[in-house]
């Protein structure tokens, strides 16, 4: 699998073309005649080229045909088979089984539990922020690049300040994205506002990109009456309908099959949008990971599963989480196209998500992206990770492999950012945050009536009664209740 980089592009192109007739590759593999695999090896061409390649008529028709076939009953399976048999090839020794023809062999060999080399990781920037020469990536405009960088810095500062606020006892809980700023910001930047986000919990950067303000973040963490969640959830469980960001839910991986369901609904509605769902390395052990990916593949749903492989699930290292080569190899097991990307390289993440989005929407298929990164911070404010990992490992990733520094170097080198802007930004964000926290802290908590609303669409009579009783009790015995309850 990993050898494809070394094979000459023409050989690969021919190989792909030959396999295009086989249904399991589908019509979705696009081959550019002039420069090999479109998504791997073309030489930094502009966006429009890529779009044109998608319109390869043969491939598109095949994809459309596949989509059309999905909407018939399984009686269409029989038509399916005839596609396979039309390409007789050199398979004169093959057997029919449910699921299609397979060729057989008299040599008994087990597929190895791992390949010789690991799946390579797509990156565009060197560790120091220099652009790798002759690389393939999606160009970013100056405006977007500056916004991306500013957001990464804002996220970093926001994390630091809220973490401190928890330590000071002002909020009860916090969870940072330290070390993963490029993932949430760059992936969000590659999406449109209509794309629906189902986060896990370490992606507030996506909300930040979409315009959630520092005050809105603070209000949720303090659970005051301005909080969109009406003070019902723990800190960092943000949710915003207007930003198409689904409310964060604590049980791990439940968002994956839900994402498949939403993507299917988008498909039923013929929307030109996709769903993006995030998961960590640990979350892929949940049953819902299997169900979500399997379903999405069967339903041919436009969903991007984005796995943040940051090496640690609280204290469980990846070597204790799974024995596969990370998450990317699992994609093929479900029939899902996948890629491994350097999660600390903002441009690589941006390009990969961009491409994935086009495929998901135009070809109506799920995509799996594994972003390799490192969780620099503790799991949350309830954790002290120095108890189970080496301090110098943490420091190394914080200093030498920092995604924010790396991207800054790139933006500065092409003259889109300066030291002065850096200082200004950091000062301003810090000030805004401290102010936002002060305001959030002083804002009233939600009123008593919000205890009973939204359990159902309309409040039932028993809850109305309970609210009435509670109001009477609080009014009659005020010293038994905190003074800041507005009745």
């Amino acid at each position: 699998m990993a050898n494809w980089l070394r094979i000459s592009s023409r050989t690969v192109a021919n190989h792909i073309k030959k396999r295009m007739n086989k249904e399991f590759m589908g019509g979705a593999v696009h081959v550019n005649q002039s420069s090999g695999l479109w998504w791997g090896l073309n030489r930094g061409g502009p966006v429009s080229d890529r779009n044109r390649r998608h319109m390869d008529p043969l491939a598109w028709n095949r994809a459309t045909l596949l989509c059309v076939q999905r909407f018939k009953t399984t009686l269409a399976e029989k038509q399916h088979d005839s596609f396979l048999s039309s390409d007789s090839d050199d398979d004169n020794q093959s057997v029919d089984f449910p699921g299609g023809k397979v060729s057989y062999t008299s040599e008994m060999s087990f597929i190895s539990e791992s390949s010789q080399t690991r799946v390579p990781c797509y990156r565009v920037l060197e560790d120091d922020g220099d652009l790798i020469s002759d690389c393939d990536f999606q160009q970013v405009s100056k405006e977007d690049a500056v916004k991306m960088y500013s957001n990464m810095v804002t996220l970093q500062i926001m994390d630091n300040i809220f973490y401190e606020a928890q330590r000071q006892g002002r909020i009860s809980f916090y969870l940072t994205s330290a070390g993963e700023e490029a993932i949430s910001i760059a992936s969000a930047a590659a999406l449109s506002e209509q794309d629906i986000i189902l986060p896990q919990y370490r992606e507030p950067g996506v909300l930040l990109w979409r315009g959630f303000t520092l005050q809105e973040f603070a209000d949720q963490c303090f659970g005051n009456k301005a909080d969109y969640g009406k003070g019902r959830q723990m800190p960092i469980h943000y949710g915003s309908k207007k930003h198409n960001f689904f409310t964060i839910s604590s049980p791990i991986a439940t968002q994956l099959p839900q994402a498949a369901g939403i993507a299917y609904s988008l498909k039923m509605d013929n929307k030109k949008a996709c769903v993006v769902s995030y998961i960590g390395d640990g979350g892929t052990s949940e049953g819902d990971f299997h169900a979500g990916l399997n379903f999405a593949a069967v339903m041919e749903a436009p969903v991007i599963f984005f796995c943040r492989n940051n090496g640690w699930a609280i204290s469980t290292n990846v070597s204790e989480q799974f024995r596969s080569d990370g998450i990317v190899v699992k994609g093929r097991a479900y029939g899902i196209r996948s890629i491994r990307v350097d999660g600390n390289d903002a441009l690589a993440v941006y390009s990969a998500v961009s491409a994935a989005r086009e495929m998901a929407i135009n070809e109506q298929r799920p995509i799996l992206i594994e972003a390799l990164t490192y969780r620099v911070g503790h799991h949350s404010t309830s954790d002290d990770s120095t108890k189970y990992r080496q301090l110098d490992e943490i420091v190394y990733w914080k200093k030498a492999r920092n995604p924010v520094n790396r991207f800054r170097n790139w933006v500065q080198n092409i003259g889109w950012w300066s030291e002065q802007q850096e200082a200004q930004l950091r000062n301003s964000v810090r000030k805004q945050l401290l102010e936002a926290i002060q305001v959030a802290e002083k804002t009233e908590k939600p009123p008593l009536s919000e205890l009973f609303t939204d359990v159902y669409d309309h409040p039932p009579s028993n809850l109305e009664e309970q609210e009435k009783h509670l109001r009477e009790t609080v009014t009659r015995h005020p010293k038994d209740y905190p003074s800041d309850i507005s009745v």
Partner: protein
Amino acid sequence: MLGIVRQKMLEQSLKKIPPAVSVLRSYSSAAKQMTIRDALNSALDEEMSADSKVFLMGEEVGEYQGAYKITKGLLDKYGPERVLDTPITEAGFTGVAVGAAYYGVKPVVEFMTFNFSMQAIDHIINSAAKTNYMSSGQISVPIVFRGPNGAAAGVGAQHSQCYAAWYASCPGLKVLAPYSSEDARGLLKAAIRDPDPVVFLENELLYGESFPVSDEVLDSSFCLPIGKAKIERKGKDVTIAAYSKMVGYALKAAETLEKDGIDAEVINLRSIRPLDRSMINASVRKTSRLVTVEEAFPQHGVGAEICASIVEESFAYLDAPVERIAGADVPMPYAANLERMAVPQVEDIVRAAKRTCYRSVS
């Protein structure tokens, strides 16, 4: 309207009919008979026809026409986009359906039996039931979970549990348990139209039973209110409250009791959450005696909740302790004789009612 007029006329004519027959006829005016299976199928068909957002998901619901044939004919009529055969993963398809409901479509998820819903219970409780509250109204979950619940015949411990009490203890869910075909049609339609998540508990052994249905019930706009119980049989001596199959047993018990001069009032709960506490309390205030009947395990059950409600609100009206009839506190055994002893029988209900009336039960 016409249905009500016909009902009144029928009631008057009923008085001339011998008692054994009149009990059977004390529903709405009975011109047609309909099985529960057909009642559910027609309800699904009509709701899918009226609202293109409604779609079905579950194992065997499509090509197989439904494990119990409840979804018969719907795949042919609405196509595979709206009737989805799923792989075997309750957690998976429940999660997918909840996601779809978050988006705004209206899935009706079938569990082959509610015993299998335990594999999906995190999605039902943490994702479906609580999300409207946790998202402060931004995400509503208009989903229906339906399927057979409770004991069947000779299916053993892992296929016989009743989940009414578990689901009904969770705020955010609505839990319904139909008994007759009228209930099945009216409550399923109401459940599909409801913007909140609804758990709809059917009963496998009732699927083939026929009940009379009036024209009003057969109309496609027919709907029953969620949260209202029904008095299946009026009486004055003792209240018997039951749901699902046990309503039928309670009615048979009432026949037997009548011969002994005890006039029992039978309440069909229809809705476990919200529980129609006001109707149950009003009935007990009239009769002063209560027997609750359920097939489920006794501890923390529906009967326990009803008893608590009566004690809280109508204690002074009780003339006897509340009698609670429930299944045996053991995993359901398979052997037919043991199974029979593990679920309530009509005689158990009769004896309990007599105990509340201080009659000897020998």
